[in-house]
């Protein structure tokens, strides 16, 4: 089922949470809504689910205007951040809930429900735990029960709110891989919310980067990481070093010197690059030149704090641990990839 979001606006007590955004989600796609707290990503997910009503705008499931329908009628599978499992029901009862509450004419027979529950438990690798209660399960198990419960109603769209947020790092990695396989097997259109960029980049077909109720950029992991569309995206995804620069005559200038990078436009701008994505140079005929003022050991590299000559602006550069540059007090380098965004005002 494809989902189209058209000019959705949502205000909470006059405070805008979403500012008229649009998004097309293709059928069977796995989409991540990525952004910091308060960016509106969870609000967008809840709007798709029907747990919130938009102030303006429409949401289409296929050709059908879902925004006029209640959450029950939308037939979505929603996995809540803290799973919201019914604590007084067993695992099996939790999963069967969505089928048991159906009106008599569409409710499957008891034996059919039992079979569906057992199939679903099988699918999420929890067979044998049907008699357990939620508080007898580990975090990862609860997560999968919540997913099985959402899948039981054969939803048209699967929506997950911070699916791995409450789990520890190891379980999180395992489940991430598992969810990807699960999606590839079932082929449900899936939207999940996360504030963890690693999760979004690794898992999603496309990442929707959000900030302050707006979509900053939509694209594959390659797009948003290698070709960030705005300063926000560059800062938010991956590491970023930034330098205030000036663009003149198609060249990037820091103060009174060029640094050997070509750029379009004119006037003040900010140059972004990844700290680990630089070439170290011996001589410097137009490059970044600075004094190392600090050094920290990262897992696989050494991060140097460099004060640039002239502007005295401080930036960070990663150097391989065994690289001679790590031992020097002066550093000449040039970023391999970079982006410049004009400075507003």
């Amino acid at each position, binding site marked *: 089922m494809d989902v189209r979001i058209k000019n959705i606006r949502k205000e909470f007590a006059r405070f805008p949470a979403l500012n008229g955004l649009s998004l097309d989600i293709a059928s069977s796609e796995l989409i991540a809504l990525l952004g910091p707290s308060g960016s509106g990503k969870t609000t967008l997910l809840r709007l798709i689910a*029907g*747990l919130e009503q938009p102030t303006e705008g429409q949401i289409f499931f296929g050709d059908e205007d879902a925004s006029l329908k209640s*959450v029950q009628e939308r037939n979505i599978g*929603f996995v*809540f951040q803290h799973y919201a499992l019914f*604590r*007084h029901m067993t695992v099996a009862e939790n999963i069967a809930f969505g089928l048991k*509450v159906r009106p008599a004419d569409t409710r499957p027979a008891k034996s059919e429900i039992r079979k569906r529950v057992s199939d679903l438990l099988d699918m999420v690798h929890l067979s044998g735990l049907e008699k357990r209660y939620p508080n007898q399960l580990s975090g990862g198990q*609860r997560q999968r029960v919540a997913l099985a419960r959402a899948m039981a*109603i054969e939803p048209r769209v699967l929506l997950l709110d911070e699916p791995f947020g409450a789990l520890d790092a190891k379980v999180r990695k395992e489940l991430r891989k598992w969810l990807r396989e699960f999606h590839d097997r079932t082929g449900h259109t899936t939207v999940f919310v996360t504030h963890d960029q690693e999760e979004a980049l690794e898992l999603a077909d496309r990442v929707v980067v959000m900030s302050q109720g707006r979509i900053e950029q939509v694209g594959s992991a390659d797009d948003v990481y290698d070709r960030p569309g705005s300063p926000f995206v560059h800062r938010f995804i991956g590491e970023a070093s930034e330098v205030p620069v000036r663009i003149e005559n198609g060249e990037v200038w820091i103060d009174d010197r060029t640094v050997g990078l070509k750029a379009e436009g004119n006037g003040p701008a900010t140059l972004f690059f990844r700290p680990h994505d630089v070439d170290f140079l011996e001589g410097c005929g137009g490059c970044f030149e600075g004094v190392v003022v600090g050094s920290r050991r990262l897992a696989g590299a050494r991060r140097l704090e460099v004060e640039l000559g002239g502007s005295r602006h401080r930036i960070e550069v990663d150097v391989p641990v065994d690289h001679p540059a790590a031992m020097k007090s002066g550093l000449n380098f040039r970023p391999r990839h970079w982006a410049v965004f004009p400075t507003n005002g």
Partner: protein
Amino acid sequence: MSEAVSRYRDPAGESPTWRVLLTLVAVAFLAIVVILPLITVFYEAFRKGAAAFFEAFQEPDAIAAIRLTLTVAAIAVPLNLVFGVAAAWAIAKFDFRGKTFLVTLIDLPFSISPVISGLVYVLLFGAQSYLGPILKSQGIQIIFALPGIVLATVFVTFPFIARELIPLMQEQGTGDEEAALSLGATGWQTFWYVTLPNVKWGLLYGVLLCNARAMGEFGAVSVVSGHVRGLTETMPLHIEILYNEYNFAAAFAIATLLALLALVTLALKTLLELRYGDEIAAGRKH
């Protein structure tokens, strides 16, 4: 080991002398205020022998009083069960204008003297009130009759269930309800299968306290009852009358029933707190 105990004192603790002294004060206070009166009730009730004790319950007026008390509780408690759950549901799960005001209103019976609450109903529905003549012409009697006693009891005992459920429901939030709705459940199914089971022990706790108060209420009921013997006298009122007639044995005999009710309530309450404390008080998450 013993040296370590004496040398390193618990920073939040007191010296042994103080601890013993404070404990003694507390125990003495409890003995005088709670335990001694309780013993007195049973002692006085049986002073003239078991025969006299059981005779007190043979008396028609006593039987009528017990029956009336049970009737009032049987009406008032279910009513407050419905009101309490409805109020708690509305306050905990929804946002609306005047919510704080509603919460304050729920607390009103706790902060107002029961005699005043009784008087309010007399002023509203009594013979001298604006409504009095209308009610009378319809042959409806509220004051000095069962409806008045029930009204006064409902008013006084209203906060018990609502007050117990509101923090519990607020703490649980709306996540479970949203999950149920997203799975296709109707509002009623959500309430019945999800909300209510989530608060069932807290609800039972509230019902218990509400019932104890409903059976024991004196002030408000005294004002609206009119003290018609064998007709509008509940157990507490009957005890007072017997006592004023110097019929101590009978008065204390009936009083043992209320004391027993209190003890059973206390026992059940403690049991609930022990077994389901985390589901009664706020703070449970899975």
